[in-house]
């Protein structure tokens, strides 16, 4: 796997950027194109969200939506509180969390393929969910198992590397090992439980938004409220690390400590996302890259990745809900398919340019 830095090939900036200042302690450079892309993404997210609530036989017509949210009748209350509302809000949160986690992982590992999957988090979550499915069928919710499983996987990776989270390449290698064990275990459980439980488990470990509740919303949004600001604060120090550890240390970047903090933040976000919706694949991988390409920023932007991830998630779930397979089909299958095609597109483009 090539370890090409994300910012490689970014052109030198043609002109100085306007800078947003507040006193002497805050000075944020503003990229015009990134701001425009962010605005467009936010509008697209809003449009996809409105479509999610309005489309289909269970949708609330656009004209009545505002009134229904203010004073819901029985049908609107059911749709907004039970059927589509929590699902939509979960989707936005999960997508944003995955997007930010992906942006952080890819920067810190300097690997465009960095995502929670490659360090074993998703597989650990599957294994945890599988354990709960096996031991306590129908008693405890799978998300609790997923949460415990991903924490266990993270602990295994942390102690497995022998160096904590300071060495990205070791993290990826150990993660592959942990993931393989976890997936083998999941397959074993799937053969061990009844066929009905197996189907439920199979759907859950693909990553699904079906039947989400406000509890899932709380899990992911509280985490975002806590860790989102951390991610924004850390993002600027990450820019230093991108230039290489020695240089970053010389400039006061404290690369080891930053790296550990960044990984912990990314892990927290993706764990919450996985606990809320199961191990949905490829959003963390593709959202930062698409956002970076659209905005032509040198590195992965945290804010844009969050918007992009949320938009991708809502759009994927919208497609699943309106698909002939029905709303129970795991949304993770669609993201995996689209993510895979995107990888293929990148590959074809790269070999046309002759750079791979």
């Amino acid at each position, binding site marked *: 796997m090539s370890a090409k830095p994300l910012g490689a090939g970014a052109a030198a900036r043609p002109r100085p950027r306007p800078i947003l200042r507040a006193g002497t302690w805050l000075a944020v450079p503003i990229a015009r194109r990134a701001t425009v892309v962010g605005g467009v993404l936010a509008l697209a997210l809003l449009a996809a969200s409105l479509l999610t609530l309005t489309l289909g036989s269970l949708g609330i017509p656009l004209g009545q939506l505002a009134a229904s949210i203010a004073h819901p009748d029985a049908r609107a209350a059911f749709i907004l509180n039970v059927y589509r509302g929590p699902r939509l809000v979960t989707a936005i949160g999960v997508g944003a969390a995955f997007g930010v986690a992906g942006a952080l992982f890819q920067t810190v590992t300097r690997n465009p393929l960095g995502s929670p999957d490659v360090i074993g988090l998703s597989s650990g979550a599957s294994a945890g969910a599988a354990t709960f499915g096996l031991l306590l069928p129908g008693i405890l919710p799978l998300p609790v198992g997923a949460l415990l499983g991903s924490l266990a996987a993270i602990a295994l990776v942390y102690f497995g590397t022998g160096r904590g989270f300071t060495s990205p390449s070791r993290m990826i290698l150990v993660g592959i090992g942990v993931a393989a064990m976890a997936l*083998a275990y999941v397959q074993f459980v799937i053969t061990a439980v009844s066929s009905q439980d197996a189907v439920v488990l199979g759907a859950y470990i693909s990553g699904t938004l079906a039947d989400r509740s406000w509890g899932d919303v709380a899990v992911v949004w509280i985490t975002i409220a806590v860790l989102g600001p951390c991610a924004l604060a850390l993002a600027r120090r990450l820019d230093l690390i991108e230039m290489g550890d020695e240089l970053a240390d010389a400039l006061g970047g404290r690369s080891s400590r930053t790296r550990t903090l960044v990984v912990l933040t990314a892990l927290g976000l993706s764990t919450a996302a996985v606990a809320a919706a199961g191990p949905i694949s490829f959003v963390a991988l593709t959202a930062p890259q698409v956002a970076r390409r659209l905005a032509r920023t040198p590195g992965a932007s945290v804010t844009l990745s969050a918007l992009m991830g949320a938009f991708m998630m809502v759009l994927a779930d919208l497609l699943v809900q309106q698909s002939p397979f029905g709303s129970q089909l795991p949304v993770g299958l669609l993201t995996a*398919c689209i993510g895979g095609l995107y990888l293929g597109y990148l590959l074809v483009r790269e070999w046309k340019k002759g750079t791979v």
Partner: protein
Amino acid sequence: MADTATAAPPRAGLSQSGPRRASPRARTLLPALALAGGVLLFAVFLSLSVGQQHVPLGTVWQALVSPGHAYDDTVVQSRIPRTLLGLLCGAALSVSGVVVQGLTRNPLGDPGLLGVNVGASATLVTGIAFFSAGTGQERVWLALPGAFAATAAVFALGSGRRGATPVRLVLAGAVITAVVGAYIQAVSLSYPQVFDDYRFWVVGSLAGRDASLVGQVLPYLVLGFALSAILPSSLNALALGDDTATALGAKVGRTRLIGGVAAALLCAGSTAAVGPISFVGLAVPHIVRSFTGADHRWLMPFSALVGPALLLLADVLGRVIAAPAEIEVGVITAFLGAPVLLLAVRRMRGRS
């Protein structure tokens, strides 16, 4: 000659583990090869002897050389198919692991990387879902074309105008795995009956396989072994990088083609027979490399002996630890292989 080939390859990642040793010589490796053969023989006997009905090793020997009509003989006979499959598939997986790691110059290369597993699963699931095919023998014929098609697709996608390169192959494998994997899940989850069938196949097991399976996959495996046998020197050259290999007179493109076909034959045959078994193809070359060094002329024969030994011992272990039930060998190999990977990583020096 052997010395330069072993010491020269600049390889990334795992293989930098451990202290650099002088290349082991034939006079230490040949006895080691005999030892590996001995371990394999022991594994074969254990596989025939251990299980719900334990047969003493001496009786196993008797049952093999002069079969009578005793009950023990029947037990041993019933274990012959799974032992044969374990032998063949263990060797096939580990040899294809050597080939794939050599071709992709990726120490984490696994035959699954080339899409063989998802390809086999996809046609299998399709066959069961839409053509209600797929009991027993038909599975081999369902799994094989998918395995080959997926490998061909990975190579096609991975080969630009200038031929396949390691990075492209790895990426192409990831692409095919993601897209086809989603298809498999979508179909199997939409048809509970298919899922019920599929979940027992995909875990990878030597148990309950018919003896005729051996004959069905044997031609593919034999051809795969034969093609692999001509590769070691070319793979040694390839380890030096495409440019150096070409400069040394190696035919890089041809090596990749033959290697890809060999790995596909081996891995597809074994996957069709016993389901996807993870980690044997990944871990065995690593275990072997730790005492042979990187010379493929040693790596390959050793892997062909260590792989089946590992698979058979894992299968025996799966019969023992959950007795009277069994744990599928695919689960055991993952749990044996992953710690090997962890150890290898922990021994790595440096950060990159």
